[in-house]
């Protein structure tokens, strides 16, 4: 740990900036402090005196902190900062809600207009609901990281495990639904699986009905499995991207204090 770790942590708490900007400023300050300390030691000061003198020389007043935040804030953050505190939270929520709503509506439209969902499986609705949940959750985290630039690692990690968990639930639901549909399609005729397995000859009175059942099953199951795969991929991709972003933030923060 650097001899100035506590000082840097104190500055970090006051400096409300997104990563990696905050860590870059802290890194710059850290090595300037260490240089000043070494220079003071070379000038004949005792260790304690040298550290205190360096701290005094590089003390960041509230005014300096405010100025640094003003320089490094994103345009959106600057705009929000001009609003009163209560309005800020309300506005942030409204923006988040609008973004999520737009995502949900766009995704819903894409699902509804797709041909293979016309004759859909009963399992498609819960799978789609999971997909929307994953989208909303992922969008919320990405919004926090990239738009609001609020880099509280603990808050960002909160609930992130839901993405892979929901991907797993989605897979189980999809595979379960696939076999249940198969059972249902087979059982709808005579005994389970029987009618789909027995190959009927052309001209046989049941052949057309059997073909309709098989086609219906294939259509439903392919629609279901395609959606399951897309939702699972989306969940894992979002989880990976968010996790990597959080890791970068963590790395940037810890590198300053080492």
């Amino acid at each position, binding site marked *: 740990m650097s001899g100035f770790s506590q000082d840097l942590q104190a500055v970090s708490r006051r400096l409300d900036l997104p990563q990696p900007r905050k860590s*870059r*400023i802290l*890194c*710059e*300050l850290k*090595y*300037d402090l260490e*240089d*000043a300390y070494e*220079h003071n030691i070379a000038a004949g000061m005792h260790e304690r005196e040298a550290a205190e003198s360096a701290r005094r*020389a*590089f*003390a*960041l*007043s509230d005014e*300096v902190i405010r*100025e*640094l935040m003003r*320089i*490094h804030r994103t345009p959106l953050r600057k705009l929000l900062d001009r609003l009163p505190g209560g309005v800020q939270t309300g506005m942030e929520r409204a923006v988040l809600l609008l973004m999520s709503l737009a995502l949900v509506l766009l995704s819903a439209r894409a699902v509804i207009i797709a041909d293979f969902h016309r004759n859909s499986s009963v399992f498609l609705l819960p799978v789609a609901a999971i997909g929307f949940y994953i989208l909303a959750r992922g969008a919320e985290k990405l919004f926090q990281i990239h738009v609001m630039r609020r880099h509280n690692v603990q808050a960002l990690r909160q609930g992130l495990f839901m993405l892979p968990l929901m991907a797993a639930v989605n897979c189980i639901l999809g595979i379960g639904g696939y076999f249940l549909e198969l059972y249902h399609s087979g059982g709808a005729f005579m005994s389970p699986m029987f009618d789909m397995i027995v190959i009927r000859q052309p001209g046989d009175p049941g052949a057309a009905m059997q073909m309709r059942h098989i086609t219906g099953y294939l259509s439903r199951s392919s629609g279901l499995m395609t959606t399951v795969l897309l939702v699972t991929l989306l969940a894992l991709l979002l989880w990976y991207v968010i996790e990597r972003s959080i890791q970068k933030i963590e790395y940037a923060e810890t590198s300053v204090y*080492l």
Partner: protein
Amino acid sequence: MQRAILTVPTLTRYCNELLILSIIGTGKKHGYDLARELEEQSDGFFGFNHGTLYPILHKLEKDGLIRGSWKQEGPRRKRKYYSLTAEGKKYRASLLQQWEGFFTHFRAIIGETAP
């Protein structure tokens, strides 16, 4: 290019900017180097809290007048060095010209009223 307009309320700001740009103009410097050189070259006249340098440096960097680049020094140490950009050189020349104008007018008044 940015144009500085030297007025009484902006004197401190443009004084700091010109001092910093002039020191950086002599070669790449990091924050502590810069603070020391300012003090040494002015025999301690321009001695200020080193922490106040950061907002000035970061603002100049954001405006494209200086360029900050990280350099690895040893296995675990990296420093941010600042160098003057072409835009910064022009800006420095413009500031210098305005300061000269300021001193001409200042001396004209001081010189006439001085005992």
